[in-house]
């Protein structure tokens, strides 16, 4: 089975500052990794995914993440955040191959202020 740890439950940051949201996973098999964003009172929206190939993955809204197999991490970064990035962010993992159920982390609340 796979598991995901998001160490930071909340991350406060000023507008235009850089941000990193941390995600570590555990698995005995190869994995696919995902980041989702949830704006208030909405469902989850896919930000980016790592399936194979380049370990640096670019997503929507200027976000990117880097897959690090040796450190079993998939941290999410943005060089300059905006007020509109305030949301909850979820990291998720599944085993490779045929699409199966995702296991989610507990989420990180990103709070951007002026």
């Amino acid at each position: 089975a796979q598991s995901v740890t998001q160490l930071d439950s909340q991350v406060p940051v000023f507008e235009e500052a850089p941000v990193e949201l941390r995600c570590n996973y555990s698995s005995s098999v190869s994995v696919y990794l995902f980041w989702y964003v949830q704006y208030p009172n909405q469902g989850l929206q896919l930000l980016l995914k790592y399936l194979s190939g380049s370990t640096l993955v670019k997503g929507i809204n200027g976000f990117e993440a880097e897959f690090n197999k040796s450190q079993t991490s998939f941290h999410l970064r943005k060089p300059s955040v905006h007020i509109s990035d305030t949301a909850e962010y979820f990291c998720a993992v599944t085993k490779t191959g045929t699409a199966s159920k995702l296991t989610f982390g507990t989420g990180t609340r990103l709070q951007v202020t002026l």
Partner: protein
Amino acid sequence: DVKVTQSSRYLVKRTGEKVFLECVQDMDHENMFWYRQDPGLGLRLIYFSYDVKMKEKGDIPEGYSVSREKKERFSLILESASTNQTSMYLCASSFVHRNYGYTFGSGTRLTVV
């Protein structure tokens, strides 16, 4: 625009009532999922279905059942609602053979009083 539609955004039900949460997708996805979301616990899988009339238990199936009579529709049933089932319920769908990730509905916030 492709989507997953959950029939209700907000529901208030009484303890002991039978509750139906409906989810419909128009993307011809094989997989469908029901999660519940609680603060500090993230998303926990209740049930999922990989084909019509097929279902598998997730991590927290107790007190819930599901029905999938048609490919596009996946229903979550609370047989006898209890206050500890007050939560946000999220439906999602995906392809089996293409790992594009899930598409989520907007969620149903259920309050059991």
